[in-house]
């Protein structure tokens, strides 16, 4: 064995990723994209409400039989739930640690201060907190029924959705959250592309258009449900 020729052992891959700001941003980008994919599927599912209770409730039932006969009742759903919780936790923990670091790195403000970054960019942290709180309320409302207004009935999502959006606060919370989501995705999707090294000068316009399109699509798609209930299109 050669002596002392290999003295600089590098840390393991997970250690390198988690200890580095670039690596932690990668964790944020990947977990964010996983959540984004889920949101697109979730929005498409939500829009089935416009085809009536039969379609919507059947879709909810199908979600629980997904993957049968390999997967038993709700197995696939639980796999997705566990994956999403992991993504939310990874995203939030990275965001918290990176934000702490960022704030420490700029302890004194300029006397002559002017905000320049776009609204979406400046509100990523508060937007993220709003979305986190929303997810908690949303699950307690429509998954567990704990804070649901009126009688929550499992596997009857059509009526449950109408109950929620028949209250003024249900509409306010939901629409605020989907608007926050739009802003978050607008900066987040494009940022994720930069973090993963996909962005370059030629692709920049396409990536920005894609981010804005996704943000608009998700906000409009999700907001259409409470608006549908409010206007009586869904009843």
């Amino acid at each position, binding site marked *: 064995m050669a002596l002392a020729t290999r003295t600089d052992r*590098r840390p393991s891959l997970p250690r390198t990723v988690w*200890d*580095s*700001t*670039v690596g932690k941003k990668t964790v944020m980008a990947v977990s964010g994209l996983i959540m984004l994919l889920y949101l697109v599927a979730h929005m498409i599912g939500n829009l089935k409400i416009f085809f009536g209770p039969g379609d919507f409730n059947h879709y909810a039932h199908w979600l629980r039989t997904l993957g049968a006969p390999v997967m038993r009742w709700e197995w696939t759903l639980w796999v997705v739930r566990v994956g999403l919780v992991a993504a939310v936790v990874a995203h939030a923990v990275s965001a918290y640690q990176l934000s702490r670091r960022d704030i420490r*790195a*700029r*302890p*004194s403000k300029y006397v002559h201060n002017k905000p320049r970054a776009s609204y979406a960019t400046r509100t990523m942290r508060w937007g993220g907190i709003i979305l986190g709180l929303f997810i908690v309320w949303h699950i307690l409302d429509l998954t567990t029924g704990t804070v649901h207004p009126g009688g929550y009935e499992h596997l009857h999502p059509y009526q449950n959705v109408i109950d929620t959006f028949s209250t003024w606060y249900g509409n306010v919370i939901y629409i605020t959250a989907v608007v926050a989501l739009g802003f978050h995705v607008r900066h987040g999707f494009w940022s994720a592309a930069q*973090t993963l090294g996909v962005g370059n000068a030629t692709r920049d316009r396409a990536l920005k258009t894609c981010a804005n399109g996704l943000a608009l699509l998700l906000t409009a798609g999700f907001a259409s449900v409470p608006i549908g209930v409010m206007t009586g299109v869904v009843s």
Partner: protein
Amino acid sequence: MKLTLRVWRQQNSDADGAMSTYEVDGISADMSFLEMLDTLNEELIVKGEDPVAFDHDCREGICGACSLVINGDAHGPERTTTCQLHMRSFEDGDTIDVEPWRAAAFPVIKDLVVDRSAFDRIIQSGGYISAPTGSAPEAHATPVPKPDADFAFEHAECIGCGACVAACPNGSAMLFTSAKVNHLNVLPQGAPERETRVLDMVTQMDAEGFGGCTLTGECATACPKGIPLPSIAAMNKEWLRATRKARR
């Protein structure tokens, strides 16, 4: 021109600083911003006061020594260095705020002078190539494709002034580090250290206490040399590649 200056005065790195107000008269529109400060300092010296300390060296916009945040903009309102900023960019009677670079990794030494040696340590950690000593090699021995040469040169323009850090709301040095990494990583001369360079420089950047990148784009707007924002994405790509390929 008659101007009101509000300048950050701080005796040393341990003292508390504050903005002090000064009036300067007889400023020509053709003076550079630093010449205007020289005028102020001459007056202060005559009055027996402590002159304002600020960094400067070549005054040609190529050394990266000057470092002032003028009215909230790193290097002032024009896309150039403070030494190449002229008083014609201001109006007679203006009030101008002059502050040092603000970042935890750039502590204030005195007044407007900050310690930027964190950048030197980032360079030391990987901003070099291993080249044989002796006479210069024949220039055509190592072909470099034109687009690669252009890409390298675009990043080699970085003068390490630190405006990117000063402008960043997170005090992040990602644009500086990416300029240095991209400059060498794209060239065949930089290939032997391609992976270790980006890993080590990012590690050193983090160790110096710079913040992370949130893609606000302030750095690229402030950069007097026009290092583009996609440089950061290019370095991220190199970093991700290096984590997979680095020999252990």
